[in-house]
């Protein structure tokens, strides 16, 4: 069996990679993918903890997070599309009408 700690550490590493990705990348789509990766990393923790504690709360939480992620993706990509129709870039540095 896999010790919970290992899963949590993996999850923390994935979360950090995602967070760093958000900070270093300038492409809105990739930033967004990194955010999704962060949510996923947390989900992994939740599932492992659900086992650790022997209740289903963590798994329910994951289910809820998936719904949230789905909505966020729908809205986020729609926003990106709306912008691209105006201006042909997804590079957030080029989107500089307002200061970043």
């Amino acid at each position, binding site marked *: 069996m896999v010790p919970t700690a290992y899963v949590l550490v993996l999850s923390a590493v994935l979360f950090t990679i995602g967070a760093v990705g958000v900070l270093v990348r300038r492409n809105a789509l990739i930033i967004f993918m990194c955010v999704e990766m962060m949510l996923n990393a947390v989900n992994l923790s939740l599932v492992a903890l659900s086992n650790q504690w022997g209740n289903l709360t963590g798994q329910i939480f994951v289910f809820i997070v998936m719904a949230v992620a789905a909505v966020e993706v729908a809205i986020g990509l729609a926003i990106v599309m*709306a912008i691209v129709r105006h201006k042909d870039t997804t590079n957030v540095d080029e989107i500089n009408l307002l200061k970043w």
Partner: protein
Amino acid sequence: MNLHLAIIVPELIIVATALVVMLADLTGRAVSAPPRWRGQLMAGLTMVGLIVAALLTLVQIGLPVQDIQNLLIGDELSRYLNLIVLLAAILSVLMAWDYLVHFTRMMAEFYALFLLAVAGMMFMGKAVELMTLFVSLEILSVALYVLTGFHRGQLAGGEAALKYFLLGAFSSGFFLYGATLLYAATGTTYLSEIAALAPGGFFTIAGLALLLIGFGFKLAAVPFHMWAPDAYQGAPTPVTGFMSVATKAAAFIALLRVLLATISVPYEVWSWAIAILALLTMTWGNLAALRQRSLKRMLAYSSIAHAGYIFIGVAAGSQAGMNAVLFYLFAYAFMNVGAFAVAAQLEKPEFSAAQDADISATRGLFGRKPLLAVAMTLFLLSLAGMPPLAGFFGKMYLFIAAVDSGWVWLAVAGAINSVISAYYYLRVTVSMYMYEPSEETFVRLPLQMPVSLAISIAVAGTVLFGILASPWLTSLSRSVVALAAR
């Protein structure tokens, strides 16, 4: 199972109103009613829903605390939050009433999303379980992302939405991780159980820290504020007014609930974190506002600064501090939505958000529209914290609470910040009173009835709330919990 559904009747009414608005729109289209007429109908329906919800909330005040399966709680805190959110929403809908027709035909969608955002905030104020809290937070966030980008005719709106969305989603990640760590510490997501188990140690502290980051983003606290000026500037002005007040209110209440649950983290630890956040937020917000030329962007930075002031009350942690936070949020709802309402009247319809009304657009406003100028002056002076306006009393209660809890330096920093902020608020009054109207001066004429009503209500609130609300403050104090003595 305890399903006291009565406690969420106001929320349900808001959600139902959103559905009614959409259905009414379909009907309106079916009979091909003219767009303007449809817009009035939507706004009217929204208004009715908001007012009914507010009345029901008023009826609930004083009732005993009840909960639904320990997930949602109907206590005084949540009822006062409802009132703050609904007040801001009512004023903003009045503001949007005639503003919307300038840039969109999707009135029904606007009002429906607006109502759902309101519902999300109200649920957030009631949520006492981390999943429920998270979903409520997402409801209001997603609705606001869309509302921010609602002005489809301009690039700035879309960009504001994108930035708001990306950083909002980013912060959701932190929020979620924080919640997960609290679950890791206790094996439960119920705040009451987390508080009862009260485990100390790494998980709780780290969980609270990550949740604080998440809340920091939502509250636009420095250094998590990068999205706020753009989102506030790019959003349609009624949305800006609404979200600058109501989102803050909901997030602060949720923050209080989380702090109440993480009982094992010592007061000395988290209050210092909050105090530093308060100091950074108000100082940076005010300093950045000094340099702004756009009226809306200046108000955006000012609302960052105001989150800093409110943090002072949280750092105090006492019952007086919590009272002060609620009191300030009420005062803030009047004065800030009022200020944005006036700002909205100074925008030319063809303005895109990237070049919205400069401060110079208020030049000589006193000569053109004296009443509008006087109203704006009252809002600005109140935001600066001048007596006898509501903003002064709000700050006063915050500072009293801070001094009571030993945070004298924080109160001093707040007072000094008020002086800094006075400079940029006064610049607007200088422009309004001490110059003659210029070419750039633009006032949307005629001033429509709904927005006049909104401004009048806001003026009345700004002037009278501070002076007359003292008995109310006493009743408030009975019901609000103290953090420090958790």
